[in-house]
């Protein structure tokens, strides 16, 4: 594990530098702006992964009712919040460069915003309940309930609404059309961000566990 953490530094450094110098800027984008895809999409992806992790940890918590799973869920939510803020902000900057306005209410933009609100709501709920057992259960319930609805929002609604409105310029994902340099940097970045998330998640959990043990000793 330690080796992976040490390797992540140079690895991501290579990814960052490659992102700027290896692939050519994509067609249809303004200037070098297509490079933001190497940052923005992995952030959004990680924010979604974080949510899945939180939902799974919440299910575990409802079964086991232990501190570990509750902390795991909360830690995933905190990291998810971080990445969804990064995704929203980077997406917004890109939108300004590409289409001239910071926000367009495009279905994908709307769903990342919704994810952001969801994370914030969970954290607020957590802060509002003082009893630790009830806090764990209620937060777990909220996360699982949201997990019921989330895939619906991300997959169904854009499709349903898109069939009625002419599709404005959606994020040019163009996965199939990526050339080798772009594909390598993109998936390389994706892997790096995912690894970073799990590292941050583990650090957060360990920190919380430490605080909890300290409190118990007092």
């Amino acid at each position, binding site marked *: *594990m*330690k080796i992976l*953490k*040490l390797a*992540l*530094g140079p690895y*991501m*450094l290579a990814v*960052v*530098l490659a*992102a*700027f*110098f290896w692939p050519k800027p994509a067609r249809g984008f303004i200037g*070098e702006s297509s490079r933001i895809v190497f940052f923005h999409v992995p952030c959004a992806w990680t924010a979604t992964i974080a949510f899945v992790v939180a939902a799974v940890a919440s299910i575990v918590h409802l079964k086991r009712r232990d501190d570990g799973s509750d902390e795991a869920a909360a830690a995933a939510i905190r990291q998810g919040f971080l990445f969804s803020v990064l995704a929203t902000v980077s997406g917004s900057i890109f939108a300004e460069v590409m289409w001239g306005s910071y926000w367009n209410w495009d279905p994908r933009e709307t769903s990342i915003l919704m994810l952001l609100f969801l994370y914030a709501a969970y954290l607020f709920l957590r802060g509002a309940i003082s009893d630790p057992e009830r806090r764990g259960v209620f937060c777990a319930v909220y996360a699982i309930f949201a997990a019921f609805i989330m895939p619906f929002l991300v997959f169904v609604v854009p499709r349903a609404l898109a069939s009625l409105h002419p599709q404005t310029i959606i994020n040019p994902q163009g996965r199939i059309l990526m050339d080798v340099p772009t594909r390598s940097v993109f998936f390389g970045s994706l892997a790096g961000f995912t690894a970073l998330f799990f*590292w*941050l998640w*583990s*650090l957060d959990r*360990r*920190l919380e*566990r*430490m605080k909890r*043990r300290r409190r118990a000793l007092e």
Partner: protein
Amino acid sequence: MTALGYVAAANAVIWLGIWIYLLRLDSRLAAEERREPGVGGHRE
């Protein structure tokens, strides 16, 4: 160096800063976990 070069360099520096910070946090946590008997269960 071009503008792109500067942006790339800035990004690289930011990332390295984050990485070093995380490594230090990780080792500090590991040290604390080793110190306290029965605390942690985190294996490196």
